[in-house]
């Protein structure tokens, strides 16, 4: 049976879980017993990358070659980097659209660094399950935009994982809670992690988890609190500017701040101490109330999104039946106090806030593998999607908090006579002007010459269950569908991902053709099993002659898998797939009919 794992790829720590029987469990390190893999990757000169606990230990001594919180850089371009980012790491400046870390002579994109963390999790799961793992569900912050989601999918691919689904972290947490408590009603999930903040409001009803609204900030979390506390320490210690500016000292201070922050969640006062590279020990005492004063503005920044999410869900805070806390930063007493005050109720935190997202990812993996049929997530797109129209205006095609998957079609025309092509600029965000929204992609479609206002260009947006957008455009007058070459504004192209994959494989050992053949054969086998299952389960939907045509195509594909031509295998898979599309359509229609009949019947029942 196919093993699908659930992965929480966190800013600070990552975990991997699996649905065992009916309950999810997270895999621990067999030696240390720890379930957390620190999301830290260190690149020692001339050696292999080090991931996790050992890399974290190197963060203070080798801060420039050790990357922490890589998640904060996913899906970004160099222009999104802050001054403190540049203080911390060295980046490739200029030409590239995607952020690249410079480590010695090499450069790494955030998806490549994340892939190393994913590989570590994959190894851990494979060791625990005693079998290869090739498929995964990965969680992402609900407020991640399209570029950030794509980057996460790319990371999975680079790690040798097929990412079956990206699940929003708060939704995954709700799934774990829903499973645990079997409760119904409305739930607010407040998720403050190491680097990101999400608020989601859901309605739970008989196994359906329907997200009503979500909001957040993808650059707000425990890291900001550590940074704030670190700055306080540097000011209080009054170190010479040269010392205070050094990357080594900043890394040491950051570590000390993180530890002091954690201690202050259970104590009223603590000592924050750093031993500088020259051996001098610097220490300052800090009380909880002082910390709270420092971080209050950061905690305050989470409340606006909460109010907006309530408003978008058309609810008042008192309408919420339960509030769930997720993420390590919700251990901070001030955070709990603010959440309690906003929702006027005691928040729930009985599941470990570090594990709950991974547990939910494990449940979702179980749903996708067909092992749990009683639960279903209906999630939403967090930010509006649209295109740039005349005057640099963002015209929305899909509003935020629209349930996914969804599709929409809109017709546009030209503003200038005799345009030969139309440029389409795809945007995401809530602002009125395109310049204030996030650019996702640009492409151009050729059109027939005409006066302004005459051409009709139909743009179709399709958003899948991962919240990832695909766009097609068509010149209505010629009826020509243009295969659109979308250039992601802040993402990797398929070719780049392919090249990275090639580079990551040891060429001395690897025969590329043999690998392509093996992959094509595996895919053909899976595909043939699926088709045969469909044929066996739904013979009544076949039309006359259809079975014969499909059988012939199956036989041809089988013959091809015995051969060595991987391109031919791929072509035949494609052809057989197209040949079964009408059958699939008929089965789906019957499902619609059956669902409504069943619903009508249940109404008649006493």
């Amino acid at each position: 049976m196919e093993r699908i794992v659930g992965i929480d790829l966190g800013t600070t720590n990552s975990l991997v879980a699996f649905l065992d029987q009916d309950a999810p469990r997270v895999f621990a390190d067999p030696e240390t017993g720890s379930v957390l893999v620190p999301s830290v990757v260190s690149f020692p000169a001339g050696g292999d990358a080090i991931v996790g606990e050992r890399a974290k230990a190197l963060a203070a001594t080798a801060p420039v070659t050790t990357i922490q919180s890589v998640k904060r850089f996913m899906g970004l371009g160099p222009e999104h980097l802050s001054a403190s980012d540049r203080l911390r790491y060295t980046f490739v400046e200029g030409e590239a659209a995607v952020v690249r870390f410079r480590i010695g002579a090499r450069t790494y994109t955030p998806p490549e660094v994340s892939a190393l963390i994913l590989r570590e999790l994959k190894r851990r799961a494979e060791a625990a399950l005693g079998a290869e793992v090739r498929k995964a569900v990965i969680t992402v912050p609900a407020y991640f935009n399209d570029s950030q989601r794509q980057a996460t999918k790319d990371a999975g691919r680079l790690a040798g994982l097929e990412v079956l689904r990206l699940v929003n972290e708060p939704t995954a947490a709700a799934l774990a809670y829903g499973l645990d408590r079997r409760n119904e009603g409305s739930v607010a999930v407040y998720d403050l992690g190491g680097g990101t903040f999400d608020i989601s409001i859901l309605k739970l009803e008989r196994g359906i988890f329907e997200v009503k609204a979500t909001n957040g900030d993808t650059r707000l979390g425990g890291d900001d609190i550590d940074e704030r506390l670190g700055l306080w320490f540097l000011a209080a210690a009054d170190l010479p500017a040269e010392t205070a500016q050094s990357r080594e000292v900043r890394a040491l201070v950051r570590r000390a701040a993180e530890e002091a922050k954690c201690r202050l969640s259970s104590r009223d006062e603590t000592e924050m101490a750093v031993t500088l590279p020259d051996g001098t020990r610097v220490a300052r005492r800090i009380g909880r109330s002082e910390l709270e004063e420092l971080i209050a503005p950061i905690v305050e920044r989470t409340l606006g999104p909460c109010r907006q999410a309530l408003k978008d869900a058309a609810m008042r805070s008192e309408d919420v039946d339960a509030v769930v806390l997720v993420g390590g930063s919700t251990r901070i007493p001030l955070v709990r106090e603010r959440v309690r005050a906003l929702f006027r109720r005691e928040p729930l935190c009985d599941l470990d806030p570090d594990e709950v997202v991974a547990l939910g990812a494990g449940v979702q993996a179980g749903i996708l593998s067909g092992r749990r049929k009683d639960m279903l997530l209906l999630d939403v797109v967090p930010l509006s999607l649209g295109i740039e129209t005349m005057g640099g205006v963002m015209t929305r095609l899909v509003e935020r908090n629209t349930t996914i998957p969804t599709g929409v079609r809109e017709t546009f025309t030209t503003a200038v006579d005799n345009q030969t092509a139309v440029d389409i600029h795809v945007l995401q965000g809530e602002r009125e002007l395109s310049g204030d929204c996030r650019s996702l992609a640009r492409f151009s479609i050729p059109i027939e010459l005409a006066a302004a206002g005459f051409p009709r260009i139909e743009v179709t947006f399709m958003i899948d269950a991962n919240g990832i957008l695909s766009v097609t455009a068509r010149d209505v007058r010629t009826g020509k569908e243009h295969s659109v070459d979308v250039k992601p504004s802040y993402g990797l192209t398929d070719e780049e991902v392919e090249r990275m994959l090639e580079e990551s494989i040891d060429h001395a050992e690897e025969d590329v053709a043999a690998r392509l053949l093996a992959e094509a054969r595996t895919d053909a086998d899976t595909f043939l099993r699926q088709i045969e299952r469909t044929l066996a389960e739904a013979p009544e939907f076949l039309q006359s002659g259809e079975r014969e045509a499909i059988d012939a195509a199956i036989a041809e594909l089988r013959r091809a898998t015995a051969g060595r031509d991987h391109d031919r295998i791929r072509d035949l898979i494609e052809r057989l797939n197209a040949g079964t599309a009408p059958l699939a359509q008929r089965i789906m229609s019957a499902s619609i009919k059956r669902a409504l009949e069943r619903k009508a019947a249940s109404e008649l029942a006493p």
Partner: protein
Amino acid sequence: MAMDTDSTLCFECGKPAAGQLVCSGCGVVQHGATEEPDFFALFALPRRLSIDLADLEARYYALSRELHPDLFQTRSPAEQVASLRAAALVNRAYRTLRDPVRRALYWLTIHGEALGRNNDRVPAELATQVFAVQEKLEELRERRQTGAAEAVEGEVRESHALLRRQMRALEERLQETFARADRSEEQAASLAETKALLSELHYLRTLIRDVEQELEPEWSAS
């Protein structure tokens, strides 16, 4: 790019729905590249403007339990694509029908009476009111620059409350119109009335949003 003002208000569906969702003969879903089934038929509901929302939700959940792509992950690629399309359609239909304004706009569209984007007629009183509120908002912005904005802010809050009351009254009238249209006594008159109400609602909604934006700016990251 510009909005195509010639085309009808492509609010949810491109065309008047030709034909049914499920062919009664063979059970084939009738959605090709451009044609879409009737959203009411999709939920096996009559084309009526008044809808029992709890019943609609139950129908939506029942369909989602059959069609959602999560349930097709182990099936063939063709079935996965069919499920994605079907679920996207059901989601859009539900979003359209559960909101009275979107539902009414859609209903007008399938009756060949789409609301134009630029040629909405607005009653003179409403236009005057919109103008007055916008002026007040402008004054509020200026006062905020120079200080002492409290008095004006109070006035804006008052008009906000008034606008909300007007909005509720309009929504009630819309429901009454729905009931009349469903009894189809005077179909043509109902169509015209629904159209007029919708354009008023549209103006009020936009105005309320502007006022709220000024009183309590919407939180947005970008």
